[in-house]
């Protein structure tokens, strides 16, 4: 069936962005338009969310395999080959639609409070709406081309938002870094799409047609396509080796981080892999590779997170780590679990970021956790919601993270990938450790340093718009898990069923599952205990840790990966570029062009001499031809006689 609602959902944020951008640009500064911006900036996502709910509600009445198409117009029509600008809502995109619009709306509301005093309020909301619209375009696209457009627009929006505080060069650098690394991934993605397009035999390039035509493509080529597409996912979802932009992306305002990390950009890679599930189902080796990358990223990010001091960077690495989980899931073919973790993660990670943002705002943009401390009593609302989120991400039962993460780990174990399972468990342990390290240091532990160095810092009171979204998200973090309650706990995995993805089936006996889950919880509790031991009951006064051991220092500095990249890639590239700039560009390319130009100019100058405006010359040349013909006739025909 078709409906115009999906198109409307996509266009609404764009419309809002356009209106706000126009107003921001052309209404003279000094007018206080914040209320207008609030109305448009929040209204459009909320409306989109409402429409999304309506669409999903309609969706649920349909059979699981049905989808709601929303063609907008025919974009490219060459013969039988057509690409429409059309949107489609099926079960997968419906989930994404809800997550994006609901979490996005909450972040928007939160951002009103966060950005209230900022000069670029209107601009920020224009970008924000644009970001949301791009993500919706990505999610609802019915063909890879449109998806790619959304993909790119998301990149653009993230660039704009990360570099929002563009007066600081570091922010610009971070934005550039994010943008460029995403380009590397996009290159892979485009290559994959191109290859797919080249090998695709059917006319039409929407998902249904592509999946229908997969059978005709060689498996090796399919693997290549899958790998190339995954390169794009690596970039977007910040996986090894293209993750280095993620921590730097914290340069933007905190709502931006929340939006990027929770609901939108980074999940695009996971969504894409899930979207191409029929493709990846045919190439399990690539899936395994994806899972491996995911596991490695998860472990690495967890290790980095454990040694970070910046609150937002900890959360950033935690995002990367959780994305690793999701990729394990989709890589091993358990798409619905991946998407479920994605949805759950969207809630608690958004909550975490917003809580962190609240703390940062309250502390006048202080981000070092060791300069905070003991805020629990002074920011009770933030503390409680943060605790919920921390428990959720740690995987304590009844919270959403427990069900979603355990589903992934159980499946990994059940499908026999025990190495991955083991890494997952280690990551779970580390997650518990670093999350509670954060929680304890910020909220529980007494603030030795700050009480020593300066007076108790006065806290900025938080606006209400920054607080109550936290509660909504906290509620989501608690209850979302029951949506997909495994059968082992008396549930029916309703979400996975309704999602109707091409999952691999692997079942554990319930007893085994209980044991595994219990083990997981134990591991998490162990991590909490260590964190408690270290930061709440410390053996020595709590200070910012000074890492004397080499490996600790290395981890704190994220293994010098950035430096490594700089040495290995950036500098050689710069060298080659400089070399090109000095030698190849001016000498060979410009030189050849200039030579060509000189040649043409010479030829033209010489031939211009023929056109000397002199009547006699013209007559002479003309007669030369006539005379030549005459001569030919005389010789060939012997004249007329």
């Amino acid at each position, binding site marked *: 069936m078709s409906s115009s609602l999906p198109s409307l959902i996509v266009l609404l944020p764009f419309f809002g962005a356009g209106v706000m951008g126009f107003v921001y640009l052309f209404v003279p500064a000094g007018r206080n338009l914040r209320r207008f911006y609030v109305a448009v900036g929040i209204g459009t996502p909320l409306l989109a969310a409402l429409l999304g709910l309506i669409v999903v509600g309609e969706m649920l009445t349909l059979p699981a395999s049905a989808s709601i198409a929303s063609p907008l117009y025919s974009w490219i029509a060459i013969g039988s080959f057509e690409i429409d600008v059309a949107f489609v809502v099926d079960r997968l995109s419906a989930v994404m639609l809800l997550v994006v619009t609901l979490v996005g709306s909450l972040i928007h509301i939160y951002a009103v409070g966060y950005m209230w005093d900022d000069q670029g309020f209107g601009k920020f909301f224009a970008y924000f709406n644009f970001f949301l619209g791009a993500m919706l375009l990505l999610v609802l696209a019915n063909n890879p081309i449109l998806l790619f457009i959304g993909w790119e627009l998301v990149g653009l929006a993230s660039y704009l938002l990360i570099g929002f505080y563009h007066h600081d060069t570091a922010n610009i650098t971070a934005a550039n870094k994010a943008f460029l690394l995403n380009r590397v991934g996009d290159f892979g993605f485009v290559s994959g799409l191109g290859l797919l397009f080249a090998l695709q035999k059917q006319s039409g390039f929407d998902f249904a047609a592509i999946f229908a035509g997969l059978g005709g493509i060689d498996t090796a080529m399919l693997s290549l396509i899958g790998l190339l597409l995954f390169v794009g996912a690596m970039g977007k979802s910040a996986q090894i080796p293209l993750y280095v932009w993620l921590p730097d992306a914290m340069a933007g305002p905190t709502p931006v981080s929340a939006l990027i990390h929770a609901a939108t950009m980074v999940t695009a890679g996971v969504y894409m892999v899930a979207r191409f599930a029929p493709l990846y189902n045919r190439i399990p080796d690539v899936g395994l590779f994806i899972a491996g990358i995911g596991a490695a990223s998860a472990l690495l990010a967890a290790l980095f997170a454990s040694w970070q001091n910046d609150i937002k960077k900890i959360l950033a690495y935690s995002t990367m780590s959780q994305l690793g989980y999701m990729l394990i899931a989709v890589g091993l073919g358990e798409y619905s679990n991946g998407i479920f973790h994605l949805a759950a993660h969207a809630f608690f990670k958004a909550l975490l970021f917003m809580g962190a943002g609240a703390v940062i705002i309250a502390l006048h943009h202080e981000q070092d956790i060791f300069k905070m401390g003991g805020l629990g009593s002074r920011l009770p609302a933030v503390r409680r919601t943060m605790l919920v989120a921390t428990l959720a991400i740690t995987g304590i039962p009844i919270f959403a993270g427990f069900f979603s993460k355990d589903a992934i780990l159980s499946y990994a174990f059940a499908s026999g990938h025990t190495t991955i399972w083991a890494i997952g468990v280690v990551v779970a342990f580390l997650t518990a450790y670093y999350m509670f390290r954060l929680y304890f240091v910020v909220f529980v532990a007494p603030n030795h340093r700050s009480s020593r160095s300066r007076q108790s810092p006065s806290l900025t009171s938080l606006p209400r718009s920054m607080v109550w979204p936290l509660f909504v998200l906290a509620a989501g973090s608690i209850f979302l898990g029951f949506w997909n309650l495994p059968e082992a706990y008396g549930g029916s995995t309703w979400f996975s069923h309704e999602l109707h993805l091409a999952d691999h089936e692997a079942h554990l006996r319930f007893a085994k599952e209980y044991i595994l889950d219990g083990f997981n919880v134990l591991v998490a509790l162990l991590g909490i205990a260590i964190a408690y031991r270290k930061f709440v009951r410390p053996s020595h006064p709590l200070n910012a840790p000074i890492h004397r051991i080499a490996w600790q220092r290395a981890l704190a500095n994220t293994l010098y990966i950035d430096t490594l990249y700089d040495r290995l890639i950036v500098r050689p590239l710069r060298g080659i570029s400089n070399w090109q700039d000095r030698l190849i560009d001016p000498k060979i390319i410009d030189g050849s062009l200039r030579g060509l130009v000189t040649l043409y100019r010479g030829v033209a100058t010489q031939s211009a001499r023929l056109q000397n405006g002199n009547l006699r010359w013209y007559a002479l040349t003309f007669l030369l031809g006539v*005379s030549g013909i005459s001569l030919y006739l005389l010789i060939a025909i012997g004249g*007329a006689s």
Partner: protein
Amino acid sequence: MIEILETSLFALLALGVLTGGLMILLARRPATHAMGFFIALLSVAGLFALLHQSFLFFAQVLVSVGGVVIVTLIMILTVNLREADLPPEPHQTRWLIGAAVIIAPLSLLLYQTLTTLGDAFPPVSDTFGGTRSLGTLLFHDGVLPFEILSVLLLTAMVGAIIIGKKEQSYDRES
């Protein structure tokens, strides 16, 4: 006797045509050109007469000799040509020889083609080429071209007047 007269007349007129042409081609001064032009046109008119084209003869003498040559002369006198205004032609001989070599095949072909068209003149009636017969022909077969020609002449006249009009802005740039 008539034959001798005609042949000698033809020779004289042909000589006149060629002399006139050569005078135009070789001379440097406009006076010689004009004289050559006059001689050539008059000789062509004479050849017309020899060809029994009496009306053509009169038209040639009236229009070409009496009109075109005089207008040419008036033009030359009006602009008051001076010796210094004549272009220097340093390599004229070289040019002439080169051009002659170039057009030699063309002329040869032209001549060869023309000579295939007939060997001898048939006898014609006395009225051939006369005013009356030509006028009849003109008003039967050539009315449209005749009228078009009149329009052409009118256009040429208007055009010549407009082009030749002295414009103050064009006058003597120095």
